[in-house]
């Protein structure tokens, strides 16, 4: 079995919390649909709503003045958007871009913050998520620095596949270049190499993962590291079928 961060279920941060806390959360939040390409918050702007993705996922991106970018982390149903509020800060340092459209639970920032006071188990769990997030960003610093584009692309595809819950991903080279902070030519080269290995199929803006184990093999150790840390700190993903 390959490591995996996600199993189909509701948001994993909301699992393993007492039913009364979950009930309060559900009362305060509402289901929304996120659309691919929506920007939920710009860097420096006040976070008005917090999102707990269910089958959508969100990229958190740093942008430089000259337009260069880098995705530093991703939030799907294993995570949340708006973690700064846990730290008592209203503004987001990062751009949040919807990368995979779908459902999410949405809660107003002020309500979210008062909710934390009444839901201590959830609050603790979210702080632990913050620990994972921080670690993930730290690893991205090193990964971006040391690892080849091919291995980084493999890591990124695995992270995306987990959150998309699908083997088939709609992604242009241009989009991938923005996420990984490399030129388009670099993406083409890396995608071609992964295709030659027989782990993905690439065709006109659509990437299909055909050999997940092979893709894990082609990725740098950062993917497996992220998965094991998440499991260690927040518990293994719960399997709804069990």
């Amino acid at each position, binding site marked *: 079995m390959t490591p995996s961060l996600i199993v189909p279920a509701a948001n994993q941060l909301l699992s393993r919390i007492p039913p009364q806390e979950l009930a309060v959360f559900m009362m305060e939040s509402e289901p929304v649909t996120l659309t691919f390409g929506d920007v939920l918050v710009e860097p420096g702007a006040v976070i008005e709503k917090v999102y707990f993705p269910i089958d959508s996922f969100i990229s958190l991106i740093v942008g430089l003045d000259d337009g260069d970018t880098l995705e*530093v982390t991703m939030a799907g149903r294993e995570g949340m958007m708006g973690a700064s509020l846990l730290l008592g800060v209203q503004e987001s*340092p990062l751009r949040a871009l919807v990368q995979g459209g779908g459902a999410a639970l949405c809660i107003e920032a002020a309500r979210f913050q008062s909710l934390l006071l009444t839901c201590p188990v959830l609050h603790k769990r979210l*702080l632990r998520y913050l*620990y994972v997030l*921080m670690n993930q*960003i*730290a690893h991205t*610093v090193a990964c971006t620095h*040391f690892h080849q584009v091919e291995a980084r692309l493999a890591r990124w595809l695995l992270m995306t596949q987990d959150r998309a819950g699908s083997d088939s991903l709609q992604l242009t080279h241009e989009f991938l270049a923005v996420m990984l*902070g490399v030129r388009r030519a670099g993406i083409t080269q890396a995608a071609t190499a992964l295709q030659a290995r027989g782990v993905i199929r690439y065709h006109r803006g659509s990437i299909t993962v055909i050999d997940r184990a092979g893709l894990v093999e082609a990725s740098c150790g950062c993917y497996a590291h992220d998965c094991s840390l998440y499991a260690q700190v927040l518990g293994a993903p719960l399997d709804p079928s069990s």
Partner: protein
Amino acid sequence: MSAPQSAPQYDPRNQLLALLPEDELARLQPHLERVALPLGKSLSESGGVMHHVYFPLDAIVSLLCVMENGASTEIAVVGNEGIVGVSLFMGGETTPSRAIVQSAGEAYRLKGQRIKDEFYRAGTMQRLLLRYTQALLTQMAQTAVCNRHHSVDQQLCRWLLLSLDRLPGDQLIMTQELIANMLGVRREGVTESAGKLQRAGLIAYHRGHITVIDRPGLEARVCECYAVVKREYDRLLGPEALL
């Protein structure tokens, strides 16, 4: 109870502690243990359990992410504006990064359990630690994008300025090898960049001593990442942050 033997006078140089109201600081003071942090000392290894947190007084600590093959790169730097060991109150049992003393000096050390107790009192300390964590996250994210897109020259300028802000003087004691480890580049890369800065009259480098001669010159050369990080620290932890 092990009260430190000699803490005759409180040293107020750590800015995070300085933001605490008097009563919270007074409660903490008997437990603050003043320790010397020599250059190169490891305060935590990645995956290790951290028993103490550190509030630097004039030391600078570098947080490094270590890869499986042993290669490392700096993800953030902590000086007297901060604290080493934030993962403790987030509930992580182990530290995600290696913490190495990058510039020798002193720090106050506090037992891990003590800071957790303080954190769960939900007073100013909690707010400070959380806001500080946010600043640290910003620094990490910015370092990632800087590593990706900016030249070694610019990264070296950023690194020198970040270090300088955390030091009382304008001199850093640092080998090029250590800088290379911090920036995750080869020594030759650092030598070349440092040579350029020296020829431009911005720094003087002599046997492991770097003296910054022209700070505005460094600021003119540095990438935006320095200002982004500094602004965020000022905003989150400046004197008016908690009003």
